[in-house]
């Protein structure tokens, strides 16, 4: 039931782009993206609702493909501050009462 993220880890040079994928075996109502820096609490990035809507946050954007039950997070022109672990959270229905289930995480390291 836990969403599957890929890749598990990625190393970038500053200015490079990256894509993180999140797939579910079950139909999704919404997908939530969080970033966690080492030793800190996860912080909300964005949410995508059913409908294939694409959202943006600075140079970070995401898409949601309902047919494939997949979401992708796009990091453009990466900065050192983008380093951390990215988690996608899946909500299966509106009536799930906020039961947000997270993937295993993707560790992103941005080097100078």
């Amino acid at each position, binding site marked *: *039931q836990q969403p599957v993220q890929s890749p598990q880890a990625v190393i970038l040079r500053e200015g490079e782009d990256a894509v993180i994928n999140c797939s579910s075996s079950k139909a999704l109502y919404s997908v939530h993206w969080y970033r966690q820096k080492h030793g800190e609490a996860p912080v*909300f990035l964005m*949410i995508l609702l059913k409908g294939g809507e694409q959202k943006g946050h600075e140079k970070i954007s995401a898409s949601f493909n309902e047919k494939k039950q997949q979401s992708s997070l796009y990091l453009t022109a990466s900065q050192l501050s983008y380093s951390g672990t990215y*988690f996608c*959270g899946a909500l299966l229905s509106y009536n799930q009462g*906020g*039961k947000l289930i*997270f993937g295993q995480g993707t560790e992103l390291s941005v080097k100078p």
Partner: protein
Amino acid sequence: NAGVTQTPKFRVLKTGQSMTLLCAQDMNHEYMYWYRQDPGMGLRLIHYSVGEGTTAKGEVPDGYNVSRLKKQNFLLGLESAAPSQTSVYFCASSSRSTVNTGELFFGEGSRLTVL
């Protein structure tokens, strides 16, 4: 502005001991959650609450109990701790109006070691 506060931040237990983790939020949020984080496993939902006096099981509820007697507090209990419960525990909260369209606010985490 405290947000979500977890107590204690660190704890070492012996197998079989019991303990309670306290989560307090000052944002008047309806929903509260307990997650555990283990390397390679991500954040796994233990229990959650959709309002004062209510609780529900998440993905990995076995070995844990919870209570939500007051809206601002969500307690996580371990009756008989096991080494498999060594983990970092995160509490989170969200408002009723944004639970499905908005964000979870996380506490700083509580690191528990069971020997």
